[in-house]
Structures are given as C-alpha cells and as structure tokens.
C-alpha cells in the first residue's frame, strides 16, 4: 500500500478552481480515485449533477484528463461508447498509449435515472470503472430525495412535515444490485477510510472488464452537518454499520471492515440537520425502526460474506 508521501507526488488531475461548494465530498472522492489511476491515460465520463456543473463551466475545466459529459442518465452508455471506440481504434493502430475509462455519477444519476444505462454497460462487459458518488439525494437541483436517500431523511421532496416525518422508504441496495450483474469487481467504500478507497479504486482499474464502486461522498449542504466534520460523519456512517465497507470479487463477497463496538445509529443521525426532526420527543420509534433496518441489513451482509451473523453486545 502506497503511502501518502508517495501518492502526493502523483500529478493532480482534478484541480482547484472548480465550483463545488466548500467542503464538498465529491472533490475529495474524485481526487482519491484519479490519484489511484496514477500513470494511466484516463477518459472520464460524467453524469449531470453537482460534479459536472461545477467542474466544467465553459471555458474552464478542472479536469486534466479527457472528459465527456453527455446527459444525466447516460454516463454508463456514454463511457461504454468511448471504450468501444478505443477497442476499435486500438485494433487499427489509431490510438497511442493505453487508456482507462472512469464514469462518475451521483446517486440520482446512478441509483435512479441512470440505472438502466449503467446496468446495460455492466452486462455488456465493457472494460470500465463506474464510480457512484453517493450523497444520498439530488443535490444539484436542491436536495430532492433519491432511492439512495435513507429512511427518515428530510429532503425537499420528502420533507419532514406535520404528518409525514421525512422519507418513508428504505434505501435501495445498489451495490448488491451491481453485484448481481456478476461482473468481476464491485465494491462499497467511504472517504473516511482513504486506504480502502485507494485499494478499491486500484483493483477496479486493474481488473479486466467492468467494475463498480459505490462511494459515500457527503454533501455538507444537503446533510446539514458542520462542514469540517466530513471525515467524522463518514466514519460514523461506517462505525454505525449504516454504510459497510465490502467488496465482491468475481462473485465472492468480502467484508473489509468490521466495527469493534456497537455504535447506535443515533450517533450518525444526530449531527445532521436532515435528521433533526427524528429527535423530537415522541419520535423514538422512528429511530428504533432505522436501527432495525441497519441491523438487519448488516446481518444479511455478514451472511453473504460468510461471517457469523451476529451483532456485538450493545
């Protein structure tokens, strides 16, 4: 595993001067992924969303590699087209050098509107890496719920109202859906654990065929936590088992990190404005339900990973 000392010498390919909000998780995630692609020529494809509108405001681009944005729901198809072009032109000796293909999409562009395009690209077996920047809502259009939005979250289309306390549905398990595509590499990671992100990005880039990585990439504006606390908040997502770190390599599930203690979900929810209403007296049952959801998902994951499905004592 490379050290930060070494990694800091790699050329920066997502430069300052982009217009993401101060403290946006996407800036961190993209820098980590491109850093792991050190030394390779890269074409980045990007779905519409905060990352795209903030990084390529004409005539400025924050990308030091080739970049293409097409539309919101088609990053998967677009990057597969570029990859097909590469294959065709490579055969004819018309491309110099080797290329890697990375697509970035938000949770909206990946879990929801772009799911079909992504699924198609993965099933067809293109040699691409698709990275979902999951900030659990449509941030670019002003914090609307997506199928990645957690139960209970207050968003502008699942507002915490007098009758309905935020989003009523559990999150879609996209990472498992991608694993069900039987592609060579699928992983879930979070930026608090940079080594984990780095390792997974490396593996995804090296593997022959499609790879998918789901990265928890917090949005301070939509989540309403104290901006500097991004690593802490992400860490709490992992420690409370809300966002487990795992990978599926050639069909084999593996848990990459097992929290030692039982950290209740409140710890993750409390610092975030989007969950504030859950802490009003009389709403204890809502938090309890969220905890149950987290626990049952965790147990199911342990089973898939061949671990004993049990929780540490509370």
């Amino acid at each position, binding site marked *: 595993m490379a050290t930060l000392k070494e990694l800091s010498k790699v050329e920066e390919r997502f430069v300052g001067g982009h217009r993401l909000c101060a403290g946006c998780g996407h800036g961190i995630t993209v820098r980590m992924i491109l850093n792991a692609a050190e030394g390779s*020529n890269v*074409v980045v*494809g990007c779905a519409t969303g905060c990352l*795209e*509108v903030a990084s*390529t*405001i*004409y*005539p400025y*681009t924050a*990308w*030091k*590699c*080739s*970049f*293409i*944005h*097409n*539309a919101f*729901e*088609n990053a*998967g*198809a*677009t*990057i*597969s*087209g*570029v*990859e*097909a*072009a*590469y*294959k*065709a*032109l490579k*055969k*004819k000796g*018309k*491309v*110099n*050098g080797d*290329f890697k293909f990375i697509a970035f999409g938000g949770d909206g562009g990946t879990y929801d509107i772009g799911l*079909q*395009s992504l*699924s*198609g*690209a993965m*099933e*067809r077996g293109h040699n691409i890496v698709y990275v979902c920047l999951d900030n659990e809502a449509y941030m670019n259009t002003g914090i609307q719920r997506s199928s990645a939005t957690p139960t209970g979250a207050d968003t502008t289309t699942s507002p915490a109202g007098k009758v309905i306390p935020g989003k009523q549905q559990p999150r879609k398990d996209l990472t498992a859906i991608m694993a069900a595509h039987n592609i060579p590499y699928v992983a879930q990671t979070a930026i608090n654990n940079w080594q984990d992100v780095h390792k997974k990005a490396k593996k995804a880039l090296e593997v022959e065929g499609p790879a998918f990585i789901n990265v928890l990439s917090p949005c301070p504006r939509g989540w309403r936590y104290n901006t500097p606390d991004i690593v802490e908040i992400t860490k709490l997502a992992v420690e409370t088992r809300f966002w487990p770190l795992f990978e599926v390599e050639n069909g084999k599930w593996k848990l990459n990190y097992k929290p030692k203690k039982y950290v209740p979900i409140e710890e993750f929810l409390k610092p975030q404005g989007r969950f504030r209403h859950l802490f009003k007296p009389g709403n204890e049952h809502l938090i309890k339900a969220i905890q149950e959801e987290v626990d049952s998902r965790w147990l199911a994951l342990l089973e898939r990973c061949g671990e004993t499905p049990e929780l540490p004592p509370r």
Partner: protein
Amino acid sequence: MKTKVALTGNEAVAQAMKQINPDVVAAYPITPQTEIVQIFSSFVANGEVDTEFVAVESEHSAMSAAIGAAAGGARAMTATSSQGLALMFEVVYIAASLRLPIVFPVVNRALSGPINIHCDHSDAMGLRDSGVIQLFSENAQEAYDNMIQAVRIAEHPDVRLPVMVNMDGFITSHAMDVLEVIDDETVKNFVGTYVPEDYLLDAQNPISMGNFDMYDFYFEHKRQQVEAMKAAKEVIKEVGKEFAKISGREYGLIESYKLDDADVALVVLNSAAGTAKGVADELRAKGIKAGVLKPRVYRPFPQEEIREALKGVKAVAVLDRAETFSTCGGPMFADIRNTLYDLKNDIKVVNYIYGLGGRDLRLEHVQQVFEDLENIRKTGRVDETVKYLGLRE
C-alpha cells in the same frame, strides 16, 4: 464497378453500412428498422466488418454510446425508428451540439399513440429542430446512396454534424427493389478514413467535451451550429456531384420533376414522390402542366432552391405525412409557404395531410390533389387550406 441487385431498403442500408465499415455501431431493434440491426450483427459475427457492435439496452443508450464513440474519435453509427427515435430525442440534440458526425438511418414509422408500426414521418419531424441534417430517400437506391454520401457530409470539416437518413417504413424498408450497388473498394475510397479533430482518445491533448455552457456562451455555440448547417448545403451539393462520378447518379438538395413550365406542383418527401411523379406524367399527357418537387434534404431547409424551382408555379400542394396539431397544417407546409412568401407573386399554397399510421396514398388521392390545384389555378380561389387525404370524413 456497379452491380444490379434485388434488395429491400433495409438490406440496402445494411449493405451500405457494411461497405462503410464504421468503427462502432450501437443500436437497438425496433420495427421496421430491426432487420438493419440483425443483418449488421451477422456481418459482425461473420467477420465481414471490423466494427465494434454495441448491443445496447435502449435507443437512448444507442445514441449515447454513439456519442461516446464519436467523441472518442471513432466513426460511429446507430439506426432506429419511431419510438426509438423519440426515446433518443434528448441525446440527438446533444450529438448535434457536440458536433459529432454520427450517421443514422431512420426507418420512418408513426409515433404512438395509439401504437402503430407503419409508415409516417412523425418520428423524423419531431427532430427537425434538433440540429441534425435530415436526408430523405424515395426508394432503396436512394437510401443506399444517401447512406454513403451521409458519411462524407457529416464528417466534412465545415459541417461535423449528425446525419439522419430517412426512408419509409415497410414501403421502402421491406419492399424488394432492384438497385445498383457500388463495389466495396470504390465505396471505401469514396468515404475515406475519418480524421477527427476534437476527440477524447488523444493522450497528448486531453480535451473536455459536453461542458456546462451558461448564458454568456450558449447562444454563440448555437449560432455556430447554424453556420455548420449553412455550410452543409454546399457540402451536400459537392458530395452529390462527386458521388455522380462513382455511381452515375447525381444528387442535389431537391429533385425537381417537370417543374420548368409547371402550372401546378406537388411537394412531397420520400416514397410518395414516386406516386406523385407517375400521376404528373399522366396529367402531362392530358395537357395539364403538372410537376413534382421532392426535397431530398429537409434540414437544412433548401429554401433558395425551392423558391427558385417553384417561382413560376400558380398553385402548390404540400403533402405532409405528419401532423403538427397546430390546426394550421403540417410541418413542411409551414416551411414551403414561408419560402414562397417573399416572391410576392400570389402562389396559392395548400396542404394535404396524408398517410398517417401507414394509410395508403393512392393514385386517386394524388389525382384529386392535382385536380384541386387546377381548380385553384383557374378560379384563383382556395376553399380549404388544409385537407386530409384518404381520411374517412
């Protein structure tokens, strides 16, 4: 070398695609285009082309992947019909704005709903303002010829735009026709190799494409597209002339049929032009000076050429195989009337909507139209501007 063969329109288009041998084809099946995808897949499976075939999961992805491929620097194609084109709508605009020379046949079919699989032009007309070049083909021969020329038009440095090659669903796509195909080598030399200017797969010169364009630049970039469309008119004519050298068939922006001394004329796209020409011949034999104008290029709109061709005519009927629901007639009607307005010589222009959902256009219908035009010419009176042909009313 030229060979006469019997092929359906779909087979002819697939044959052209094989001879063009594009780097990437991304396509999805839909009636009546399906055969093109199937036949082309078999070319790929049998190693008859070098193409990377991307069997996408939808037409939206077909055009999206074609965009990715073309942006990558490849010669890319797709093909579709009707609902498929409608699903692509969003990305067709993007292909045009990114200035990517994607050639794509569209086998014209009515748009749902109600669902229907037969010919009309509502699919193509829905994208007339998307910024793509639209060529129309009367028969399999023209579809084949248009495909080959489309590559040169699309890739011309002054143009760099997608080209949609239209032919009528079933009528042309499925009917066996005798046509002349050119040998592989000649086609290969004619289309040449694609030399992209702006592309992603250039390790030395990374590029950002599809960037966020605000009110301070978007307008200018749209104006650039207009310029490319203007340039396309000249390029289409040049390519048409060059194509004549290898095929003996010359193509321009429009086909004027017996218009020089015509009193009455009919304007119509695609296969119906054949029927119209036949009727015009009959009428000529009876002493009626009838003519037909068939726009080969609908976008960019050949306004000057059409004005020139129709300037001596007294009454014109525009036949539209699509509705606009404006209640003021079909799409081409608006364009033609607008075109003739500046002549200020009181040409009467009327509109007929015909053939929606595959309804046959019969000889009697066309005869009726010419008869109406003759009446208008004689009386100088138009009773009804927009009429329907072959509708039960």
